[in-house]
């Protein structure tokens, strides 16, 4: 029994000591638990801080960010992206991402690729803003997967709208430059073609002139042959003069120096004159020509010569570009304060792509017949310029190649304030006055031929070929009129004029500059050097006669 009591006492002792130890272990465990809790709280705080920083980064990143779930619904978007598109969070988050894409195939492709595990980099897309505008963006995106499950996309959206616009502007500028370069090349090509045509057109008359001159000078030439040669030379020279007139007219229109001589004009008279000019060609190609005129005479303010020039050009073109025995028609009408003159033909027509260019300089419809028919390709440009100066317009129509053409001229029906016709120089009376004239020109032929013409009118003419000779002749001849070429070697016309004006004897002489340079600046320079008049080559004999016949030359 005593042993059992001792056993029980030992057991109680163990129990007591165990209880103390368990208490200490528990206290240790509690301390560890507290420490662990504190560590956990610190971790939680760090985690919370980390989450706050990440949230701040997400919201304020300089790039748009959003998450999209596997069903395409936007789960989250940062402020940058909302600002980019102009939506509030409530208007954006919770909606399907496809609603904001301008191109449905694009978003379908993006979602498909992401669902397949692809990582997108630099994928360009267009997003629809709240205000209806479009933003160009570059998207980089991949998917957060957990245990093979699509959680959400991680999408970065960068705005490249400005870059896109700049690229578009650059493309347009490049295209514009390319168009301009193409136009320049085209203009250059036309210029070359024009120069070649001009050379051809100017050279053509030379052969008959040269041959006619040789025939005329032949010792055994008969009078009939000499008259024929004279007619040939005269015709070819006239042709060349017409070419040059056209060129000069175009030049004047281009420089804005062409002036109309408006007068009360009768429409029928203008059309008659034009038809008369074109008649030889119409007849030569046996065209059927139909003329339709207004029932009553029409009077209006116009330059009849220029207008006839335009209409004859249209009729001549129609005749040239229509096969023999074609039909040419001119219809004139007057209605609603406007005169309409339409010239149509059954000729080669104009392809649609050529229509906008027919009135540009040097334009001719591409055709193997172009050169065969001759011409500089400036007639229609000249016509447009003249019609525009009249306040009208000209239009070309054609159903296409080999479908004929129609040119329609519209002119305002305006009456002249004064019905007295303008007096032209041609109509002025010319008093035959004999003058003492000095001609200075290094072009001997030009100088001598002009001298011959003037002598035929009874003038006393002295001819020299440079500036020094001109100054010597002044003191010897004491001319009343001096026709000085400007471009002489050593001493040019300006210098001669200044020397003459410095001499007391040279004050009374009438100095006339004769030059190929006809710009206003050229004229101003001539007057500044002491010239009284400025004539542009080639000199019209009638114009010179008028000048010389004036009672008071200066």
């Amino acid at each position, binding site marked *: 029994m005593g042993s059992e009591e001792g056993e029980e006492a030992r057991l109680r002792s163990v129990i007591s000591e*165990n209880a103390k130890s368990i208490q200490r272990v528990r206290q240790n465990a509690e301390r560890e638990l507290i420490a662990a809790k504190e560590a956990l709280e610190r971790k939680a705080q760090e985690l919370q801080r980390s989450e706050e920083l990440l949230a701040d980064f997400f919201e304020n990143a300089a790039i748009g960010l959003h998450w999209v779930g596997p069903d395409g619904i936007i789960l989250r978007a940062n402020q940058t992206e909302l600002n980019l598109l102009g939506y509030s969070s409530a208007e954006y988050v919770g909606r399907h991402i496809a609603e904001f894409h301008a191109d449905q195939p694009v978003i379908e492709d993006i979602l498909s690729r992401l669902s397949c595990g692809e990582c997108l980099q630099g994928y360009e897309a267009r997003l629809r803003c709240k205000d209806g505008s479009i933003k160009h963006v570059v998207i980089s995106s991949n998917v957060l997967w957990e245990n093979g499950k699509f959680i959400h996309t991680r999408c970065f959206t960068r705005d490249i709208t400005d870059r896109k616009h700049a690229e578009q502007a650059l493309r347009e500028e490049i295209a514009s430059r390319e168009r301009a370069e193409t136009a320049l090349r085209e203009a250059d090509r036309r210029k070359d073609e024009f120069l070649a045509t001009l050379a051809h057109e100017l050279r053509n008359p030379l052969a008959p002139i040269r041959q006619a001159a040789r025939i005329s000078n032949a010792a055994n030439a008969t009078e009939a042959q000499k008259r024929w040669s004279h007619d040939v030379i005269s015709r070819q020279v006239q042709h060349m003069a017409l070419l040059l007139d056209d060129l000069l007219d175009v030049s004047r229109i281009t420089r804005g120096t062409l002036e109309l001589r408006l007068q009360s004009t009768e429409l029928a008279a203008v059309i008659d004159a034009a038809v008369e000019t074109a008649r030889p060609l119409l007849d030569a190609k046996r065209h059927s020509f139909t003329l339709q005129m207004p029932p009553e005479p029409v009077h209006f303010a116009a330059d009849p010569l220029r207008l006839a020039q335009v209409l004859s050009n249209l009729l001549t073109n129609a005749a040239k570009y229509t096969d023999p025995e074609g039909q040419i028609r001119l219809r004139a009408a007057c209605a609603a304060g406007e005169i309409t003159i339409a010239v149509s033909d059954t000729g080669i027509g104009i392809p649609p792509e050529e229509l906008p260019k027919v009135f540009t300089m040097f334009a001719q419809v591409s055709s193997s017949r172009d050169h065969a028919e001759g011409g500089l390709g400036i007639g229609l440009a000249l016509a447009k310029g003249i019609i525009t100066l009249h306040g009208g317009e000209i239009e070309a129509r054609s159903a296409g190649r080999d479908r004929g053409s129609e040119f329609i001229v519209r002119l305002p029906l305006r009456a002249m304030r004064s019905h007295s016709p303008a007096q032209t120089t041609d109509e002025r009376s010319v008093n035959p006055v004999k003058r003492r004239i000095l001609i200075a020109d290094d072009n001997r032929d030009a100088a001598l031929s002009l001298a011959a013409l003037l002598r035929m009118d009874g003038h006393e003419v002295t001819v020299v070929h440079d500036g020094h000779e001109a100054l010597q002749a002044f003191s010897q001849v004491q001319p009343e009129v001096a026709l000085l070429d400007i471009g002489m070697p050593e001493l040019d016309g300006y210098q001669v004029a200044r020397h003459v004006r410095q001499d007391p004897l040279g004050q009374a002489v009438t100095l006339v500059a004769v030059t190929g340079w006809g710009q206003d600046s050229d004229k101003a320079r001539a007057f500044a050097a002491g010239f009284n008049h400025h004539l542009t080559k080639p000199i019209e004999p009638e114009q010179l006669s008028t000048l010389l016949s004036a009672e008071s030359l200066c």
Partner: protein
Amino acid sequence: MPIPTEPIGSIPRPLKLLAAIDACGDGMDPTLDSLYEEATRDTLEQLEATGSPVITDGEQRKYHNFWTYSVHGLKNISPDGFKIPFAAGHTRRMLRLTAEPFRYKRYADQYLDFALRYAHVPLKQAVISPSALSLMYPAEGIAGYSREQFIEDLLREHETEVRRCLQKGAYKVQIDFTEGRLAAKVDPSGMLLSSFIDLNNLALSRFSAADRQRIGVHTCPGGDWDSTHSADIDYAGLLPSLFELNVGNLYLALAGETDRLTVLRAIRRYLRPDQRVFVGVVAPIDPHIETPEEVRDRVLEAAQYIPIGQLGTTDDCGFSPFCDDTSTTRETAFAKIRARVLGTALAAETLGVP
């Protein structure tokens, strides 16, 4: 969900096995393996035949007893530990730790390894409580190995054992805490019981709430040779402390109690909402085999005090916690278990539990 019913654990070993162990003199002799395996397979089959939805391996391989299986065979133990006196006059002596360190010789999951190969229904595994093993540390202490260090080692070893059982698929892990009632007897002041509860809660605190729903604690007055070591202690007085255990399941002996209603009232008072209490409806130390109707009546009686959703049934104790206990036959044990299963089902039917 029907009223759950589970066994406590031990089933009397076959006499052939006990004779072989006795003849061999060493329960761990490898020549006994085939007999252990045969006994385990037969126990599993017989238990499944009772219809019990949850079974154990009958602790056929827990050589010697439920208390010391984990340390038996260690070099640093001595058989001269404390004596546990039973009401019938016999005693059981505990083992004593003689030197550091304290380590388990084996973990109970090794029994699961074998049983799981043959079981067709969920298996639960019983393990010894850390409070029981805490009595191995001697009163005079061990030089260089403090009691605190021993407690720490004990907790770690216990945690390891429970985790291994859970990881291997034990349906439940039941911690045998039969010394609870003994503690109240030895130390009427309650300090010992309180320290046991503290220690076991320290161990339980190492598990998650989900794990604790798969862990239970069993207590009883200790049944051995149809006798107990602490049935004379007021059970109702013990219960408040038992329900302080932070565990999801409690397996309480009730069938053998003389005043069941007082116990049931205590259970009703202290049972926590997150706990299920499995009350004993058959008494292993009682030679009488309960009828299913008797069991049913006990369940219906308990159901008057315990919410159905928190009520389960069990055996009061293992049928043979000590290996050499042949006071109850295997047939009796299986018959009692069958009665528990049938009686619980009858009660469920009566209560309208699907």
